[in-house]
């Protein structure tokens, strides 16, 4: 298949693997975090770990929108259906995420809540147009990739004077989360994880460009290589990170030049700036409160902001006691290190959010990689 096979070629992969092996410094360990769940999924699905030398360790990051949404926000969303009887439109993955006391949007739906799965915010707009008698709320989650479409939807709703549409905004930002992981003094609850270099986001970077990582790389003296979601992209990024580390450089490099520029998508950035502004702080599952790490809807668009429309009260609800998603999201633990991984927490019966989305580190390891745990223990 054109434009895909070229990036999955086994022969090229073996060549790159040889190159990486020849370039590594045998005296050191390379701890590389792929921030994005998309990369986590690629690594697991193509078995990239098998092509890397043991001293190159991939650590899964928090770049999975479903995984990092704290339980309090999910309970707020369930509350909107229960207390205000709204029609809640959400992405499919969100339905199965466990909330408090065994709740989820799926159990709420089974009890009669009007929860609808949509593929995009446009579908939610259509639901609002088709059901003028219902209050329709779009449960917006995601990083900078999904934020511009939400901005467009709000502007569209304003143009149409759509009275029954609003957005429960949970959009979050990548660079502050990276800083929190790298040990920003402002990030509560985050531990300093020893990470030598970062595989930078693919799709997020098409929107924000490579520039926003420059401060991060310089400040934390860690290299960042922005790379695509295909397996050869990831291998190439690993090689570029190994080189930077060997040479003592900590720069932002862009492997994904076919889609990412230094400035990114200016139109998308302008749309985000028009509709959203930064929250002073936002709670992330695993990272705790991270300053200036999320977006809220500007007061000019207040009528489309479900938080003000339905007086949503923020609440902080701790994760399930046995769940170690927090440590997994910070890169402190591997999925298999969690006590409940694969026993009581499985994709069918998830305890933590990382087991739900296919981009979650636990779900990816369970579906594609858990045979390695058995090989190790055998």
């Amino acid at each position, binding site marked *: *298949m054109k434009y*895909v096979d070229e990036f*999955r070629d*086994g022969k090229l*992969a*073996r060549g790159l*693997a040889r190159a990486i092996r020849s370039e590594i410094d045998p005296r050191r360990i390379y701890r590389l975090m792929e921030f994005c769940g998309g990369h986590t999924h690629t690594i*697991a*699905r*193509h*078995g*990239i*770990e*098998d*092509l890397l030398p043991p001293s190159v360790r991939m650590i899964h990051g928090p770049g999975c929108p479903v995984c990092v949404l704290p339980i309090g926000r999910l309970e707020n969303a369930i509350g909107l259906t229960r207390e205000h009887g709204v029609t809640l439109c959400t992405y499919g993955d969100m339905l*199965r995420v466990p909330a408090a006391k065994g709740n989820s949007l799926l159990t709420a739906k089974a009890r009669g809540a009007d929860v609808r799965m949509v593929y995009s915010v446009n579908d939610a707009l259509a639901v609002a147009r088709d059901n003028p008698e219902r209050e329709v709320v779009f449960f917006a989650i995601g990083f900078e990739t999904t934020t511009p479409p939400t901005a467009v939807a709000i502007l569209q709703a304003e143009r149409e004077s759509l009275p029954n549409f609003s957005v429960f905004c949970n959009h979050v930002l990548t660079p502050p989360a990276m800083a929190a992981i790298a040990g920003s003094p402002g990030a509560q609850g985050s531990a300093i994880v020893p990470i030598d270099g970062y595989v930078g986001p693919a799709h997020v970077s098409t929107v924000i460009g490579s520039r926003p990582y420059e401060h991060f790389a310089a400040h934390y003296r860690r290299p960042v290589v922005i790379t695509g979601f295909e*397996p050869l992209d990831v291998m190439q990024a690993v090689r570029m990170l190994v080189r930077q580390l060997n040479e003592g450089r900590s720069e932002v490099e862009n492997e994904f030049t076919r889609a990412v520029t230094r400035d990114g998508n200016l139109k998308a950035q302008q749309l985000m700036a028009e509709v959203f502004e930064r929250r002073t702080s936002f709670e992330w599952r695993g990272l705790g409160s991270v300053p200036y790490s999320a977006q809220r809807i500007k007061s000019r668009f207040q009528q489309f902001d479900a938080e003000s429309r339905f007086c949503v009260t923020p609440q902080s609800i701790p994760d399930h006691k046995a769940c170690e998603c927090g440590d997994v999201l910070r890169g402190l633990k591997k999925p298999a290190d969690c006590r409940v991984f694969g026993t009581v927490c499985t*994709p*069918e019966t998830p305890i933590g959010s990382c087991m739900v989305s296919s981009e979650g580190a636990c*779900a990816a390891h*369970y*579906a*594609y*990689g*858990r*045979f390695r745990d*058995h090989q190790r223990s055998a």
Partner: protein
Amino acid sequence: MAETRRVHVRSLDLKRGQIELVHGSGGKAMSQLIEELFVPAFDNPWLAELNDQARFDAPSGRMVMATDSHVVSPLFFPGGDIGSLAVHGTINDVAMSGARPLYLSTTFILEEGFALADLRRVVDSMATASREAGVPVIAGDTKVVERGKGDGLFVTTTGIGMVPGGVDVSAGNAVPGDHVLVSGPLGDHGVAIMSLRENLSFGTTIVSDSAALHGLVAAMVEHVPRVHCMRDPTRGGLAAALNEVAARSSVGINLEEAHIPVRPQVRAACELLGLDPLYVACEGRLVAICAAEDSSTLLATMRGHPLGREAAIVGEVIEDPNHFVEMKTEFGGRRMVDWLTGDQLPRIC
């Protein structure tokens, strides 16, 4: 048949008419639907007796029975419709035991308001599929539910067949060392349905692989009567079929991604829709497991049949206390091919 036919004042309006609740109420309207639509379409002496049951002679030996309900949406798709699918699906379930399918029965659950023209199209397609397969539909039932309580039409079929002597095909029969074969490219059916639902076009239309596989199976068990397992990878795709075998036989399975046939347009659609072809349903493919020494004969037999031309050996059975299905990726790594989680593609068959 003529002497048993009741006289109805007006014949069914198969062009503009629609299903009404009376068509399922046991009265004249129902008998008219049966006599003017179902009986002439399926056209066989067992059904034409118009009893509440079909009477037939059964040969002696090991008999198999399978039943399958069909709720596919949309009802009509490139390469088939709910009618042909209902015939193929149950014939295949019967045939995966190595059996020769003999008879089918069917149930239609119709929603009030369903167009008779569409019903006729489905019934005609079922009748054609059944005739082509040589497996008659000899008994049936019709129920009608109120508007809004169904979704147009659901079809259930049940089939029986006879297993030839000396053939013992079961998901529990795989042993380490066996080879795993598939009869053709994976995922055509699921992607055909999804493309239609999502309005995707890929230059060429992706056509469902829906087909009755009993002819292919007959050739396979004739040449390799010792074939160990057969499955048609429907819902959950190849992944589900092989995980079932691994669990039932208490073995592991190793696949070679590079050897698994998937059409380029199906791969492209899967990329776009975020699907994995290994989990996408087929309705006219089978996966077979046999001893290594039989696999080249079995492969040649499959390739010699029109429905197995693109057959391939895709992996082998290994010892594994965890009963995992694993795969060497084309990229050069290893991964598991686990059970499907959740519902990737609702109402695919």
